[in-house]
Structure formats: C-alpha cells, structure tokens
C-alpha cells in the first residue's frame, strides 16, 4: 500500500501553515481576536491559553526587525557573517545565564563587596567588547550595547523550530479546549516556551561548530576580514536600520552591512540565506530519524515493562474501614 499521499498531505499542510504565518493579515488579527475574547469572563478560561502560541507567531514576525549587528536574519534564521560579533553575542548570552543563576542561587552565594564590582565591571566590559568586536564605530558604540541586549532575545527566539512549535502548541491548546476541557494549557505553554528557547540556543550555539559556512557568509566574512580600519564600520547603525525598515518588511531579510558586496542584492541575500543548509537537519538526516524512532519506542516499552516487574513485597489486602 502506497503511503506517499500521507507525506503529500503533511508537506502541503506544512507549506500552508508556513504561508499563513508569513502574512500579517493572518497573524495580527488572530492575536487581536484572542485578546478580545479574553475580555469576556466566560470565554477567558478557554481563550487565555490560546494567546501564547498566537503571540509566538506574531513574535516571529516582529523580531525580524530587531537588528543584530554582524548578522543576517530572516524570520527563521540568524546567521553571523562577523565571527567577532558572534563571539560577542555568545559571551553576552553566557553572562545572562550566569546572572540568572546568580539570582536563582543568591541565598547560597555570599557576594559581599564582589557584587558591587560586578555591577561596575559589567557595563564597562560591555562597552569595551562592543567597541572591539562589533562592526560599529563612532556614536553607534554608545547605544549598541542596549540594542545588543534586545538582540539576545532575538537570538534565543529565532530558529526553524519556532514556527512548528507555535503551531503545535496552538493545536494542542485547541484540542484541550474543545475535547477535554483540561486545565493543562498553562503548562503546555511553559513547555512550548522552554522548547523554543532551547531551539534558539541550539541553533545559535551550533554556529560555533560550523566550520564550513555557506558561500554568502564566507563572502561577507572575507569582506569583514579585509576591513582593517574604522572607516569600514558603520557609524550610524540605527539610522541605517530605520532607513531599511520598509525593505526588511518587504523582503523578509534583515542585514545591516555598510559594504554589502555589489553582487548581492537584498532579494538575492534572502534566497541565499534560505538555501544555507540547516546544520541540525543535515545531522538529523544522517540516519538519526530511524534511531530516534527506535530509541523512543524502546524507551516507552522499557518504561512499561520494568514497571510491571514483580520485585518488591506484594500481598493482597482486604480493605476494611
């Protein structure tokens, strides 16, 4: 029996959902409608959990406009053409994680005077790293640290996993509301958020291991390496960004690069970014799918079998009150 039709249905559905998510006319009214439904007390119980996945779809559209210095970004990918900028953002993410851990375990850590020094050293270090690593100069160095902090949120959100997770969460929430009236919606949203952040971190982190960047990135990296003077860096980053906003909206690619190679028009850049192979997909394609299915099934069977083993002391009890 030929099951190709199932694959066709899956691919068509995937393309349809991707096309719907790409349109402002679908995403924005969806979020607005759900917010409106939340105002009614009787419906709020059901509509409240649907808001988060819809917000994820909207966030995917909005974060495209957040500028990340030294990178090209689309709705699904953020690719660094500047190695120094990549290490800058990697250090920034690491510092964020350390700060969160420090807050989480603050009771166990006796900061003492060191805490004050951290507060002083952190912004100084941030400005120094901005000037040294990011492809910006001049007045841009003053505000780029703040812009970079916003960029970290974009790096953690944007990945090819954001779209499927958002739609999956939306369908699960719909199922919970319609069929089971279950109250697990909030926890499903938590799981979706954790998955999105893990996906973003995974894709961002993998670029450190990617030793063979795509031709476009290589070209831009080559251009970056030949930049030996500050004249090649952008001195008015935000002005250039504001100027490019309509183009970003129209073409779906966000790149702020002073000397973009002439051969690469924005449309061309978008096409080349979309063609950059997904490193996780190539790893996944190397026989990982059957292994994943096999290991998943094996774990499920083992969970059931080991639990059924008669190991401890067992007896029949008669319940008497």
């Amino acid at each position, binding site marked *: 029996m030929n099951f190709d039709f199932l694959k066709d249905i899956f691919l068509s559905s995937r393309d349809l959902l991707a096309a719907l998510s790409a349109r402002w006319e679908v995403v924005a009214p969806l979020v607005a409608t759900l917010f409106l439904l939340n105002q009614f007390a009787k419906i709020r119980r059901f509509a409240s959990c649907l808001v988060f996945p819809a917000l994820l779809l909207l966030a995917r559209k909005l974060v495209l406009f957040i500028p990340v210095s030294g990178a090209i970004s689309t709705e699904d990918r953020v690719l660094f053409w500047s190695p120094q900028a990549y290490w800058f953002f990697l250090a920034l993410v690491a510092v964020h994680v350390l700060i969160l851990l420090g807050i989480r375990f603050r009771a166990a850590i006796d900061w003492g005077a060191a805490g004050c020094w951290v507060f002083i050293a952190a912004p100084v270090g941030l400005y120094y790293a901005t000037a040294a690593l990011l492809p910006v100069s001049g007045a841009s160095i003053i505000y780029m640290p703040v812009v970079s902090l916003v960029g970290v949120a974009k790096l953690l959100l944007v990945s090819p996993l954001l779209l499927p997770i958002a739609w999956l969460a939306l369908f699960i929430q719909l199922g919970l509301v319609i069929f089971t009236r279950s109250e697990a919606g909030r926890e*499903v949203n938590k799981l979706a958020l954790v998955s999105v952040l893990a996906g973003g971190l995974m894709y961002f982190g993998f670029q450190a291991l990617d030793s063979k960047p795509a031709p476009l990135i290589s070209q831009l990296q080559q251009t970056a390496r030949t930049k030996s003077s500050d004249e090649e860096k952008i001195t008015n980053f935000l002005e250039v960004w504001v100027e490019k906003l309509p183009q970003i909206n129209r073409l779906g690619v966000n790149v702020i690069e002073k000397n973009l190679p002439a051969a690469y028009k924005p449309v061309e850049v978008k096409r080349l970014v979309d063609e950059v192979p997904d490193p996780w997909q190539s790893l996944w394609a190397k026989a*990982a799918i059957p292994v994943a299915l096999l*290991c998943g099934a094996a774990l499920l069977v083992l969970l059931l079998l080991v639990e059924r083993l008669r190991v401890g002391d067992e007896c029949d009890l008669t319940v008497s009150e």
Partner: protein
Amino acid sequence: MVQATVKTSVRELSPNTAEPIGLLLGEACLHLCHNRLLRLATQPVMLTLELVAVVLGVVYAPAVTFGAVVGMAAIFLLLVVLYLCWHGWFIHRNRRFKTLCLHCTSRMWQLCCARCRAPVPALALWLWGAFLTHCPHCGMRLSDRKRTLLAWCSTCLKSRDRPGQFYSKPTYVIVWMTIALPVEVKGGWQRLSQKGAQEMVLYNTSRAQSTCLMYISANYRGNELPIKEHLKGQLRLLLISNDVPEEHAHLIIGHRGPRTICERVDPLGRSDEF
C-alpha cells in the same frame, strides 16, 4: 485505687471544600520520575554515566547519539504532555462530579497506598497504572482491582477502594425528612452513622451512575435541612414524607438548592425497611 479516666474530646473536622488544582510542569515530570526506570535513570550515579556515554557517543557516532537523545527526550516530553492533558481532564471531571468523602463530606480527589497510607500520584490511575504500578514509598504493587490503591480523603484520612470507579461517578446528596427513621436498610444502602432516633446517614456506592449520600432525618420541627451548608449546592433530591406537616415541609423546601428536585413521598411504616 484511683482510676484515671482519659477523656478524649472528639472534635468534628471542618470539611475541606477546596477544589483540586492542576499540575505544574515540574510536578508532572516529578510524578513520571516515580516510574522505576526513570527513577533509576535520574540517580546521580546513573546521570553521570549517561553524561559520559553521551559525550563518548558525540565523539564517535554523533548522528546516532543525537538521534537516541532526541528520540528519548521526545518520548519523555510526549508522556509529560499527555499526562498533563489527562490530569487536567481528571481534575475537570472531579470538579464537575464534586466527589465527596462519605465520612466527613470533604472534597476528595487523592489516592493512597493501602499498606503505607502514603499519598500516591494520580499517575497510578492513568492508563490503568501502566506507568506507575508500585507505591513510590513502600514499593507495594498498586492495583485498583486488588484494592491496594485506594481513594483517600486528606481531611479525615479515610479511604475507599476502587478509586477508578469512585472518581468516575458524581456524588449526590439526598435528604429525606420523615417522622420516624427506618429500622433496617438494604438495597445497596450502607449505614454510615446514626444520631439516636433523629438522624441517620446512609451511602450507596453500588449504583453505576452515581454515589449517593442520604440523610434521613426525623427532626422536621427544626425546619432545617440536616446537612452542612456546603452540601446544599449538591443536594439532588429532597424527599419529604406526606406525614410531615405542611407548614414544616414548606419551610424545609425553602432551604433547597437551585438544582434540587423536591418530592412528597409516602411515609415509612414503623417496621418498614428501606
């Protein structure tokens, strides 16, 4: 010789009318980790071994290791999501049915082990206990059918067998105002308590559609229902014998809940059995 008599004051427990709440994500993961295999896998020594295995696997066979880790993580997350969904449905059903402890009339939704009487997660009911067959505390094999898994009231610490059936039925409260209590009860009804000749409490769990708690009271002159305030919302049926004077019956009917069905019934004879 002086004998010391110890007087124990029996304090009546206030019924717990709080509704059950849903599980948090962390709690769902914790419940699943009560499973034997997962409990073993999350021991510190095993976690260290697993980490070493993953690192070695990434070095020598990255694709296979990646597939294995992703596959197992995906199954665990899938189980967490499904368990969360099921627990939410369980809680929703419990709220709809308003299951009560038959002894103290508190809201009831928990489980316990028949041997150690420690609380057991609701995971023991999910899929007929496929993922949690043993008590996490004493290792006792839990079974609804063998009565080793019990429905448990955390207020009065009483328990009932067959929690699967007990929690799948609504609990209805029936009040019967009469001038004399019945002498004997049968037909599936069990006597729970009796206050002299004035009041009797019965329960019936043998019906497939519901669990019934019946209060039979001969104190019609009090013009009050013989039930606590929190039960009035669950009062399904109010029966008043025809020999109860009309003026008293009228006042008693005034206390009924919005969904209470009220009926006048034939009186019980002196030797009547119920």
